[in-house]
């Protein structure tokens, strides 16, 4: 093989690897991207059926109920305009509390209950998950309901 031909083979192989990588990436993106929705969007039916997505907002005060098995919990996630019922079976994160921000990932059940497979809470006292903060900020901005004294820390860096 002449050096020129050899170079073509190398470039061809490089492109092949690149192509395979692209196919893998696109394929994986197609099936594994998880979109985020606010409770208002869930209530207005903008969410995909039978597909996993995330919702975020505040855990409504006084809404946390634990079932008899000690593991299944029910609570409402709200953006102050609308709220969505959520059920979750498993151990909640340490920082999950009523009146604090949380993000849940899962699917919407037939009865409109969000069946969470994973619940994420903020990492420390002053920090709100950006998704949760944004849900609250959006609801506030749309003026659906004037919240009383809602502080949304962390939302100012959303634009970064």
């Amino acid at each position, binding site marked *: 093989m002449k050096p020129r031909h050899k170079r073509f083979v190398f470039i061809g192989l490089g492109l092949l690897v690149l192509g395979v*990588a692209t196919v893998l990436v696109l394929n994986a993106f197609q099936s*594994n991207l998880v979109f985020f929705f606010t409770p208002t969007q869930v209530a207005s039916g903008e969410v995909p059926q039978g597909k996993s997505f995330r919702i975020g907002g505040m855990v409504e005060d006084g809404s946390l109920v634990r079932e008899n098995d000690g*593991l299944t919990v029910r609570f409402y996630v709200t953006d102050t305009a609308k709220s969505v019922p959520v059920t979750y079976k498993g*151990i909640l994160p*340490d*920082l999950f509390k009523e009146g604090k921000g949380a993000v849940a990932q899962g699917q919407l059940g037939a009865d409109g209950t969000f069946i969470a497979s994973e619940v994420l809470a903020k*990492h420390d006292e002053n920090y709100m998950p950006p998704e949760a903060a*944004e849900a609250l900020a959006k609801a506030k901005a749309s003026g659906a309901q004037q919240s009383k004294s809602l502080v949304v820390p962390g939302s100012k*860096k959303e634009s970064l």
Partner: protein
Amino acid sequence: MIPEIGHFALILALCVAVVQGSLPIYGAAVGNSALMAIARPAARGQFFLVLVAFGCLGYAFAEKDFSVLYVAATSNSQLPLHYRLAAIWGAHEGSLLLWTFILTVWMFAVTLFSAHLPDTMRSRILGVMGLVSMGFLLFMLTVSNPFERLIPAALDGRDLNPLLQDPGMVIHPPMLYMGYVGFSVAFAFAIAALLGGNLDAAWARWSRPWTTVAWCFLTVGIAMGSGWAYYELGWGGWWFWDPVENASFMPWLAGTALIHSLAVTDKRGGFKVWTVLLAIMAFSLSLLGTFLVRSGVLTSVHAFATDPKRGLFILVFLAVVIGGSLALYAWRAPRVGLGGSFAMVSREGMLLANNVLLVAAMGSVLLGTLYPLFLDALDLGKISVGPPYFDSVFAPLMAPAVFLMGIGPLTQWKKANLPDLAKRLRWAFGVSLVTALTLPFVMGEWTPLLSLGLLLAIWIVTTSVVGLRERLTHVDGHGLAGRLAAVPRSYWGMLVAHCGIAVFIVGVTMVKGFETESDVRMNVGETATIGGYTFRFDGTQDVVGPNYTAARGTFHVSWDGRETTILYPEKRRYPVQNQIMTEAAIDPGLLRDLYVSLGEPLEDGAWSVRLYHKPFVDWIWGGCLIMALGGVLAVSDRRYRLSWSRQEPVVPPSTRTARRKVA
């Protein structure tokens, strides 16, 4: 007073950095040896100044000086001394000081081990490092000063995030930063070579040990971070493909590619342009990692900073460093030349494949990490890219790379004979295939992934044995021991590092294949069985720690009626930040970990409890440590020790002849 001394030392260090980053580089360009001679004392001076600043901050923490804002924000009078000192890098400002300090440590090391370098080369290297350190010092002094005063002083501090109050967290950041910043040396070598326009095998020989040492630190740092997540977060996971983890993993992938590409440049004079690009890439990704982690764009425990000014500064700095070095690369790289030619099936060809796959894998991780941030920044909606994406892209790209890893070291340079290779490797392949297919049946469950993982791991080990055997027949020495000793350390280093990968793969495969997990509600005296082990819950007691109170559970674990161990997981409450923390209890073992963490208290002393049985999980971190050990062995090779003790640059004739260029 002491904090002001620290602040002043930083300002002086900045002045020194400005001098170090300009005069020696200019001196090298015009051939003025007086200007070039500034580099070494300037680098050492900068090291001592930043050391003073670092010491001052440490003193402020030790003395609980809550009139310093940073100290008040990250420590507390009840926090034990070792965690107060670790709190130096517990948040944004201090971790930048640590970054800069480590950069000056590397600079100091370069001044010590560069006697054999030509003056122009050394002054350019130190100059480039001076420029990088100038950027960081400027950043600290303008927008993130760790010595900022809080007036009036706080009565007590806000305490360190309880998640970070852990021995693993004390060592993880310095290790990781030693790795990140260590790539700055390889980067400075590459930029210096571009500036000088001469890039030969000697250049690769000089930068190889530096890159390998940085890579070792990074490997250990990542492993410790992963281990910390495993036992501290209480979910039993060891890698989450979290953006912060990816931020440290991308430089590792680029650095691994760089190590292999440097080997080709060193031995054969090939891959020159590519090696330089990888050096720039590895350091740029380290900077990107720092930016991602420290700027607050990520939802994570690491994202302390919420000040947009800081994000902007890092972004601009990043653009200048990456853009500048790539522009220089585009301008100067064509002069460097491509290096020797080689056949498809050859050591060079194998290493090229390794590089392409590693860089493709790095690219897929980069895409998955940055894509959500881009969408968010452009206001196109919020998405998250989770572990399934990374698993389904990363594994198919790495599997062929690992397979080639077995063949590569046995292939001749320049041109190898494929049928001959197949003959030498056939029994290794047979043994691996048979073992990989039968072993899962013996263990009770067969899945394709299980077999694939085992095949790759056993393949690496068996091919290493074949390689070592062939090597032993070629070296001189009396008896087996003599011949083993005659094998160069760099070869041992490669074997050990590759076997570390095998150990790592076994760990991952076994954990993924055989782990069992269950979330259960347990009353006092109740038992639960998982993976053959029976856990009996004996209730909780209240205990008081130095700066927390906790409920401590007692679990008796037994196997076949015999008691294995007693585990004491805790649920801690840190009153200063009013934060709850799960402290998992783990019984580690060579073949399995038992893991218990407390969920929430339920009525009548019952708790929700998370139980895990994780076979071979410790092999994951063990594998990483073995990889790093391999790196250490490679660096201790005789040829580096010789070249360090010699004064003038040495280019062996074999590499000189290999420096022919192809048009």
